[in-house]
């Protein structure tokens, strides 16, 4: 938690937070119900949130269900993640034009002013995912300016989870469910529903967060209220849908690159790429050039790609990773093993999206358990 003394905001005053953000010029985006799922979209009032909804999540299965209260944040994460705003699925990088004399000119394709977003309801695992993507896009010394321009304008309101999803395992990955100072955020809140009262315990994580709080009809939070909030988050931590023994998993995978379990999972895997596209840390893209019919105007676009496609490793002579086995292995070893070498942390925050949104319910926590149960020692003859 932050150093600030926590404050209390009553549910009936929740809209004042959204109004304050709108007044500061933010477009507020947050969870909302659409077509039987919870997606991220523009929200202008508390009523736009999934009021009184929760989700049931299992491998390859997601259903919305009514809660017996009117909680605003009584569910876990959906298929979408905030990366769709910071690292858009499609982005124009360059425009190129050829004039009548044949002279070429190039200009920035990402030339529109990015929206100033306030992200409402960012879970702790998601704040960790954003921190991981910060390292990917900004940490190498050469910043990805497209990401940077979007990221630095964001105001984030974290939510400590009051309920764990069926495929969540943030506790195993050390990324939740409590929003902490380990991840930058502007505000953090915990929702509490009691017999008589429905309120939020709020803390500020930045100067701008403090300014916003100062303008809201909040009261100092009492000890009992703060501990009621903590109790709910502790309860969430104790009821994780999944767990994964992450200790030494980096080495475990590298020592088992020829384990028969890879063949087993390849039999089940569709190489459809859903897991990578829903993963909040996956960042891979491809670049596509398009020209109009005259050939005088061309554009270069970047779009999300995945290590599950054959084009991803296309070189002269074909794709390097032909088999489903080699592609699943790339995904899992990158997330849990080689990510450490590349970016100094795990690439997995335990959000469970890849489990829920895999059409056939392949579950990385089960795969890791299988490697642990029957590890093989690499034989020297194997590459």
């Amino acid at each position, binding site marked *: 938690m932050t150093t600030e003394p926590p404050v209390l905001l009553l549910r009936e005053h929740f809209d004042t937070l959204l109004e304050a953000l709108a007044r500061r010029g933010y477009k507020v985006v947050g969870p909302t119900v*659409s*077509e*039987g*799922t919870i*997606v991220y979209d523009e929200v202008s009032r508390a009523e736009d949130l999934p009021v009184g909804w929760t989700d049931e999540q299992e491998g*390859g*299965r*997601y*259903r919305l269900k009514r809660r017996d209260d009117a909680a605003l944040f009584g569910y876990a994460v959906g*298929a*979408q993640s905030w990366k*769709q705003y910071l690292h858009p*699925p*499609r982005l124009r990088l360059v425009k190129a034009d050829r004039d009548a004399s044949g002279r070429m000119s190039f200009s920035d394709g990402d030339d529109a002013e990015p929206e100033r977003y306030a992200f409402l309801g960012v879970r702790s695992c998601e704040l960790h995912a954003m921190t991981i993507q910060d390292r990917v896009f900004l940490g190498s010394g050469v910043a990805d300016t497209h990401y940077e321009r979007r990221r630095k304008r964001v105001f984030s309101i974290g939510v400590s989870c009051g309920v764990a999803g069926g495929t969540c395992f943030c506790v195993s990955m050390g990324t939740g469910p409590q929003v902490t100072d380990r991840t930058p955020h502007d505000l953090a809140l915990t929702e509490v529903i009691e017999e008589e009262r429905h309120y939020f315990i709020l803390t500020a994580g930045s100067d701008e967060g403090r300014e916003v709080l100062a303008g809201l009809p909040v009261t100092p939070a009492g000890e009992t209220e703060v501990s009621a909030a903590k109790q709910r988050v502790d309860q969430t931590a104790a009821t994780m849908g999944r767990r994964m023994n992450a200790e030494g998993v980096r080495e475990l995978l590298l020592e088992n690159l020829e384990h028969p379990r890879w063949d087993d999972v390849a*039999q*089940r*895997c*569709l*190489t*459809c*790429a*859903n897991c990578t*596209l*829903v993963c909040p840390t996956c960042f891979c893209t491809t670049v*596509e*050039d*398009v*020209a*109009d*019919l*005259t*050939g005088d105007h061309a554009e270069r676009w970047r*779009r*999300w790609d*995945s290590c*599950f*496609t*054959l*084009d991803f490793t296309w070189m002269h002579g074909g794709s390097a990773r*032909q088999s*489903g086995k080699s592609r699943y292995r790339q995904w899992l070893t990158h997330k849990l093993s080689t990510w450490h070498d590349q970016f100094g942390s795990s690439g997995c925050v335990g959000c469970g999206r890849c489990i*829920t*949104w895999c*059409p*056939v*319910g392949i579950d990385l926590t089960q795969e890791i358990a299988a490697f642990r149960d029957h590890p093989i020692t690499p034989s020297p003859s194997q590459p």
Partner: protein
Amino acid sequence: MSAAASSRPKLAVWKFASCDGCQLSLLDCEDELLAVADAIEIANFAEATRRVVDGPYDLSLVEGSITTAHDAGRIREVRAQSKYLVTIGACATAGGIQALRNWQDVGEMASVVYAKPEYLETLATSTPIAHHVPVDFELRGCPVNKHQLVEVVLAFLHRRKPLVSAHSVCVECKLRGNPCVMVAHGTPCLGPVTQAGCGAICPAYNRGCYGCFGPMESPNPAALSSQWTAMGVPDRDILRAYRSYNGYAPPFREESDRHEP
């Protein structure tokens, strides 16, 4: 047409056993076609004009499958006259819906349907063009996507590889932000085994993918069927889902056969 026109690449469009839907996609590219009218000569396109310019042709777009001995001969002539031959649509690339005959006795069907079946001259099978002649590029879809069709013609004009991805429909579905109908609604969807190109239209309207663009680059239909079975889809429906427009494409054909009673 002026004499100078002869220096422009000649485009021909050919029809075999098909519904004309793919040619109509090309007709639907009116604006785009007008823009290339200077760059390309439409030498043969029955849906658009009766004018026929003799071959050879620089680019032939072929719609439809081979269902008669006459067509089997005709496609060889087209191939011989064409520098590049691109097949368009499920009929031309996989045999089409009419390939359902490949599982039936055609003689028996004809005797039931036609008063004088002896007038009928037809092959026992409907097969893709590539079974008969070498094909330079196959553009999938039932019907083909208009933008992909323009892209193929453009790529040919600009002498580059067409930008047509062979990955799953799921990629387009997620890029578009659709909720997954398999996971969230329990609706069977062929998207994970089907090639992208349609823009994931059906899932965007809460329908499962029908597989119009045929098998994706590395399909695993057996794994998808296990999931469908677990969702309660009977074998008969699995068989029918695979055996449609692209039913004769090997991965779909084999999977449908596995679900024969």
